[in-house]
């Protein structure tokens, strides 16, 4: 049981990091904008401002992208925490059950058949939902079988989607291939989140947080959890719905950005322990922060050229993770 002081300190630290990442995202880019100019843009009333270049770049390019990155990162990390509990497997991550595969097949089809690119998020979301339902029904529907059964079903469905993705890629022309590969690697610039999607993170976060005591109980095994009065089948279905919703929204906004959903929950567990009342907010905050930092670096490191954001998340995350793993080993 974490002390109130420790909880408060950790969360404030993560909050400060999150704010820093957002300021960093707004200040960095090909066009040089210093902090005073940034402050002017942010403090000037939108109606009175005369739409300067700085104002337009920050408000129309950097801010939507930074929010996309923060929200997608948060959703993926939250989904990762929930999936790892649901599947009782440390390798579980948001994409493991084929949700991103279904979304990818739908999104790539839209690109391949030349439909308007504004349809991509809708198609991806529908693809994710179809895949989620498919896995849910095949793994027993409302009477869910074991975690292993769910995991295997999901992995096989994901492999099936993977094959269809390769088929679509092999059918594509050189030009569309750029868009398709870019989408698959994760692209935070194309589709700013609407209000619906923005409100989803706080909502899903609060529901997950409300379940954190039950999740703590579930960590000791389903048998112990049910003896502690947890309705295990219901919690597992709820977990599945929550993690699928997080993943579906993240994937339909930004394609499949790897790594965040796997590594952030583990990273946070190493730092703050396994109490979900703290783990859920910490992972969500840090997931958003990490992706926001990574995306800023991805578009400014080799400016004017851009590199895939997944590369940068790995460049930051892998050393950080290994370092913490080594320290934890020394403590044990």
């Amino acid at each position, binding site marked *: 049981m974490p002390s109130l002081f420790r909880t408060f300190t950790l969360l404030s630290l993560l909050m400060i990091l999150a704010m820093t990442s957002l300021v960093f995202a707004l200040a960095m*880019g090909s066009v040089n904008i210093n902090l005073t100019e940034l402050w002017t843009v942010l403090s000037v009333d939108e109606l009175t401002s005369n739409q300067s270049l700085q104002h*337009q770049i920050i408000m*129309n390019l950097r801010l939507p992208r930074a929010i996309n990155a923060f929200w997608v990162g948060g959703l993926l990390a939250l989904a990762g925490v929930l999936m790892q509990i649901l599947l009782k497997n440390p390798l579980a991550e948001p994409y493991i059950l084929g949700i991103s595969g279904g979304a990818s097949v739908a999104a790539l089809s839209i690109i391949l058949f030349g439909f308007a690119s504004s349809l991509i998020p809708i198609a991806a979301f529908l693809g994710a939902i179809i895949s989620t339902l498919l896995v849910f029904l095949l793994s027993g529907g409302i009477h869910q079988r074991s975690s292993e059964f769910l995991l295997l079903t999901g992995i096989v469905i994901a492999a099936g989607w993977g094959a269809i993705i390769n088929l679509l890629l092999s059918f594509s022309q*050189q030009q569309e291939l750029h868009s398709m590969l870019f989408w698959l690697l994760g692209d935070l610039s194309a589709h700013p989140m609407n209000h619906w999607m923005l409100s989803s993170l706080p909502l899903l976060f609060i529901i997950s947080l409300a379940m954190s005591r039950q999740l703590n109980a579930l960590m000791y095994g389903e048998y112990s959890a049910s003896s502690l009065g947890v309705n295990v089948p219901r919690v597992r279905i709820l977990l599945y719905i929550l993690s699928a919703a997080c993943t579906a929204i993240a994937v339909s906004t930004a394609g499949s950005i790897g790594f965040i959903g796997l590594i952030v929950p583990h990273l946070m567990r190493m730092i703050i322990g396994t109490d979900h009342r703290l783990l859920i907010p910490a992972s969500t905050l840090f997931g958003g922060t990490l992706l926001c930092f990574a995306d800023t670096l991805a578009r400014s490191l080799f400016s*004017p050229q851009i590199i895939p954001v997944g590369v940068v998340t790995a460049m930051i995350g892998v050393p950080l993770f290994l370092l913490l793993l080594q320290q934890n080993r020394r403590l044990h």
Partner: protein
Amino acid sequence: MLVFRINIYSTVLLLFVLIFLPSISHSTPEHAIKRIITLSPHATELVFSAGAGHLLVGRDKNSNYPAEVIQLPSVGDAYLTDLEAIVQLQPDLIVLWQSGSHRSLEQQLKQLGLRIFISEPHNVQMIAEEVRQIGKMAGTTSIANKAADDFIWGMNQLKQQYAHRRKLSVFYQVWHQPLITLNKQHFVSQILHICGATNVFSDLPNLAPKVSLEAVIQANPDIIISPDNHRSHWLPWHQINAVKAQQFIQINPDWMQRPSFRLLKAAKQICQQIDPFRH
């Protein structure tokens, strides 16, 4: 004695013939090419420009110019190539675009004992030179050389007319999502130069770099040239000179992005459409 000597002489002669005949037949001038397969659309166009179009027996699936090639059998493309279809067509020359094909394809074709001509033209001069080479192999030298001379002459005419005029900066947009452009190693930059324009991203290290929207705003080009009509994408960014003055040019990518003689058509269009923007 004489008979014996003649016998020795004839034996030696026979031995000579037996030993050297195979190598002599090897070193005789190569027979002119009779059956060609091209594995990229630009290669197909080069073969036709060289006057060897009638020798073409197969093509890659994306070749679409000149129109009659569509009737020829397709052997796939440079990534998914149907080797059996190639062997069946019994070509004696394959024109391969190496940087646009699968790494192992050249090796595989060589192992099948096929003769390969690698077409990799990076500029106007190399395009003309390759047409001459194909003409030489196909025995159509006079047609090929004439076509190559006309192409170079046409480019030189444009250069004399436009290259020295007031320089305008261009963002060449290959693709919109992500934004992809081309650097100075690409022949598109050479065409811009001929027309008296400069490529704003010519100094980037990659041939086809992905750039951010912000970088384009920063570069502030006078003109945006693109194969597709993405004018509406740019409209919010009226700080860019090209958007402010509505200086967009749409160009057929088959003319502009294939290293073939139709590049001259693209160059003419670009030179003529850029010129009024100088006011």
